[in-house]
């Protein structure tokens, strides 16, 4: 063993808990913990800061990967400063970084320097939902012809099994237009941000799809996702929007792949056991 590769101190130092290392990592105001040194016992402030920097920059990068539209809206520098605060406030608890940032939208609601961008939290919610849909379990979508197997008199009682990727987003602002423009095109058109929008996120195969929803449709899909039958969901929708169009909502639902199948109602093909 080379002497140089040996620890530098002659006497054994008091063991340091990794808790000390850990809390000094999260708090830049704390100095370098005692017992951490460079070669020949030289001080290790900059050396320790490499770890601090790796942690912070890595987590900011993870947030930037998940929230690219938010980053584009505020600019890289602003985003970095904002994300730095969030990382301090709410570090991830899981090594699955693609799940990090559940609280980012709520954090933005209260982040003073970004208050003027009133739509920003909703855009963040949409981006978080988009990534959740991206990683959701694979499942076949309900085939359009399946609905024709239901007797007309039973249709109002029909319930559906929701696809794991399905998400419904309601915004008091034009969050869906803002999201789409900032994620999918180089040039951002002029958007009236004050127009409330509803959106539907689905994933028929591997590609995440996002659609604008007409008035009433978000209430309709939400009711169905909550397990209510078609008739009750339609009533909810009509109560929210008089001009709710049931036929076109059902059409959109089938096209987008909101559901995987007809829920078991004790009739017809739905009685068949799951092939698995």
């Amino acid at each position, binding site marked *: 063993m080379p002497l140089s590769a*040996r620890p530098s101190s002659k006497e054994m130092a008091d*063991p340091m808990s*990794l808790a000390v290392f850990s809390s000094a990592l999260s708090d830049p105001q704390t100095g370098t913990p005692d*017992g*951490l040194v460079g*070669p020949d016992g030289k001080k290790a402030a900059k050396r320790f800061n490499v770890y601090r920097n790796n942690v912070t920059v890595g*987590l900011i990068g993870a947030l930037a990967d998940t929230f690219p539209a938010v980053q584009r809206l505020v600019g890289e520098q602003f985003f970095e400063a904002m994300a730095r605060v969030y990382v301090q406030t709410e570090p991830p608890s899981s090594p699955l970084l693609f799940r990090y940032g559940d609280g980012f939208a709520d954090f933005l609601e209260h982040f003073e320097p970004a208050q003027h961008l009133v739509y920003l939290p909703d855009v963040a919610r949409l981006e978080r939902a988009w990534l959740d849909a991206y990683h959701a379990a694979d499942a076949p979508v*309900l085939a359009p012809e399946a609905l024709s197997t239901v007797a007309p008199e039973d249709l109002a009682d029909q319930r559906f099994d929701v696809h794991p990727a399905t998400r419904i987003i309601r915004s008091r602002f034009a969050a869906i237009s803002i999201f789409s423009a900032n994620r999918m095109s180089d040039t951002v058109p002029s958007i009236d941000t004050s127009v409330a929008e509803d959106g539907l996120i689905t994933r028929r195969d591997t590609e995440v799809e996002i659609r604008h929803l007409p008035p009433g449709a978000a209430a309709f899909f939400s009711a169905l996702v909550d397990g209510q039958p078609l008739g009750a969901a339609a009533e909810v929708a009509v109560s929210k929007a008089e001009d709710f169009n049931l036929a076109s909502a059902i059409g959109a639902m089938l096209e987008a792949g909101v559901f995987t*199948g007809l829920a078991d109602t004790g009739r017809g093909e739905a009685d068949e056991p799951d092939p698995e």
Partner: protein
Amino acid sequence: MTTSAPTQKTQIDTRFRSATIPPRAGAGLKPAHVDAILNDDYRIGFLEVHAENYMGDGGAPHRALTAIREQFPISVHGVGLSIGSENGLDNTHIERLKSVVDRYEPGLVSEHLAWSTHDNSYYNDLLPVPYDQPTLDRVCTHIDVVQNTLKRKILLENPSTYLQFEQSTMSETDFVREIAQRTGCGLLLDINNVFISATNQNYKPMTYLSEFPLDRVEEIHLAGHATDTDDEGDTLLIDAHDRPVDDAVWKLYDIVIGQIGPMPTLVEWDNDVPEWPVLRREAKLADEILQRRAETYMLGTRHAAVG
């Protein structure tokens, strides 16, 4: 619960072709490279994935990795197990790792001599451990748990370090050797890490390599590093994985392969990821060394000493 969808033939009982990682160059798999790799005339020896990136339930990542796995052997490299952790391993995470391993049948599974989680905070970095008896015991216990759960051997990777713990009572090479002996785990020798740590801790990489239990090595990692300075203006190398492999690291690699013979060799490039041909060029450089050394190795120079 589905009625109209055609009966799905699940992937579960599909066995992939050979899982064995050949003693050739491999590359860290990046989503942007998948199509280029599948369509390339150059058939890379293997691909390595970070286990955590495939711990989602479904979607595009699994689709892409399945397509890769149908054509290539893969190795699974965990970055989030926190084997050096002071307050135990996360059993949920070990089970997640097991799911990835069961699903993709990798030829090799590896993790780091490091920690990244403490008290429910995940730091997303490979943090150093002291080389003392309590840490040794703890790391060995953790590796036993992982190997027992996965029902297979794992490889442990030597870290890149920027500082050391005054409380350490043994060298890194002794520490690693002891772990391998006690747990039966294999070792993943990251030569870039050796070069970084040696520079940062002021010892010679060849000295480290001469003391490293090379007979336990089953895979090699190569990557690029950045250069910074410490408080006193001395060189401090940063394990950046954002550029080509340094010449000094290639030289060490050449020597190590001359000593231990051809070995699966991964080129890592995780930040500022270039187009596939740039990474492929690095892999081909490793392939050339492996091929050249394979010839001389066959001629019986295996006893040439390191250092």
